[in-house]
């Protein structure tokens, strides 16, 4: 369940914005994210949701605003004031990033076990046997048969690759995971299994997640809160089922009514 209510946000975006020259990426983004909270950012392509995710994950420098993050030692820092070494450490330990295309999130020339073990080594794991055991345990948790531990991800199906990406990201027990359209490259039948797996792990581990998706069904299944973006701005935000069942803005009503009821 949710963390206690009097705690401080894990991450706060304040007046965050990005212009590419004259062109607007996103602007005036403000929100707080707490531990254990899943926030879905929805909108069509070009709405600015991917730009926002890149800013939050410090892959892009902003042209305005700040992102304050509560570090493991309790201190809150603006992510854009971190040194490069501090930023890399955060990326390797406290954060995960599940990409739409598994080829961007995995090392395709390294075995499945290696993909998971690599993150452990990055945080100081040195004992080969223990790393292999932990990797095997995580493959099992994401429903990949442990016999496949020495196989390359190239030989995996799309759904297996996404599950391997999840294992690689979660093995270091991050507090915050970014997800960029994690299911959209998969067949519908495979999507359901992956969503179910993600949902179980997120609630079991109490992860904070920021997930970008154009799929409102994914947002409904996984997220507590939703932020609707259009033309670089956040136009509506709230409890997920409230925004989807009682959308207020014209654009959100259009998005919701465009989904075929299954």
């Amino acid at each position, binding site marked *: *369940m*949710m963390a206690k209510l009097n705690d401080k946000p894990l991450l706060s975006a304040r007046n965050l914005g990005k212009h590419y020259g004259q062109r607007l990426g996103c602007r005036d983004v403000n929100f707080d994210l707490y531990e254990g909270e899943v926030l879905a950012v929805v909108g069509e392509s070009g709405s600015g949701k991917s730009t926002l995710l890149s800013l939050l994950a410090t892959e892009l420098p902003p042209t305005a605003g700040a992102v304050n993050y509560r570090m493991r030692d309790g201190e809150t820092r603006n992510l854009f004031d971190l040194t490069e070494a501090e930023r890399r450490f955060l990326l390797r330990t406290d954060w995960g990033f599940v990409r739409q295309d598994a080829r961007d999130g995995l090392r395709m020339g390294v075995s499945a076990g290696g993909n998971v073990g690599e993150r452990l080594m990055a945080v100081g794991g040195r004992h080969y046997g223990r790393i292999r055991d932990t990797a095997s345990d995580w493959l099992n948790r994401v429903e990949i048969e442990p016999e496949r531990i020495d196989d390359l991800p190239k030989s995996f199906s799309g759904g297996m690759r996404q599950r391997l990406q999840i294992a690689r990201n979660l093995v270091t027990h991050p507090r915050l995971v970014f997800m960029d359209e994690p299911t959209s490259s998969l067949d519908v039948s495979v999507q359901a*299994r992956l969503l179910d797996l993600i949902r179980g792990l997120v609630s079991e581990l109490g992860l904070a997640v920021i997930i970008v998706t154009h799929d409102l069904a994914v947002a409904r299944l996984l997220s507590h809160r939703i932020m609707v973006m259009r033309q670089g701005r956040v136009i509506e935000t*709230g409890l997920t*089922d*409230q925004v989807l069942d009682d959308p*207020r803005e014209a654009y959100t*009503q259009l998005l919701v009514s465009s989904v075929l009821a299954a």
Partner: protein
Amino acid sequence: MTQNLVTLEGVSKAFTLHLRDGMKISVVDNVSFAVKPGECVVLGGPSGAGKSSILKMIYGNYRCDHGRILVRDGDEQVDVANAEPRRILALRGSVMGYVSQFLRVIPRVSSLDIVAGAATDSGVPQPEAWARAERLLTLLNVPERLWSLPPATFSGGEQQRVNIARGLAADRPILLLDEPTASLDAANRAVVVRLIEEKKRAGAAIIGIFHDDDVRELVADRIVDVTEFASSKAA
């Protein structure tokens, strides 16, 4: 003096349909009533009067345009109309439950786990949660051979009864019942009436919508006629 668990003060709701040239549909206006522990208030009125919208506003599923919806959480009163999303989620976790006739199917989870899980989520300890789930499924005539299966393949009636079991397994002081007995047979309706009586004796505040007159007669302490809150369209 017992304190109200739910208090609505001057609650109004309208939908603006932007895709229909901004057409505005008023649903209810100036809804005010309160519910005490152990009391069951039934919302009455014809279909379309706004009964379901009122329940959904209390649960935070629909927005409330005007007024206050005060929900008691221990010593605190939370105004759902203005609360942060995570505050509303916390209320749903421990204070208020919502039971409709429709089951949102969770893939790959067995019926028994769904019902027991609802109990543990609300803070019921494990062995007790299992016992409670088994009792509810038995009372609601869900055959034992189905308990280990996910309800996706069940008949509509069986899914509905799993859903009721899930909704009643939790220990929450406020229960919102949105026609949970619709299309149930008489025997199962009687079971639901008995379970609602148990909840009332345990001190729950219940707000419900029931289309069956027999159920309404048996469980209601008070009927709130929602047509009283019809918005100015009549004026």
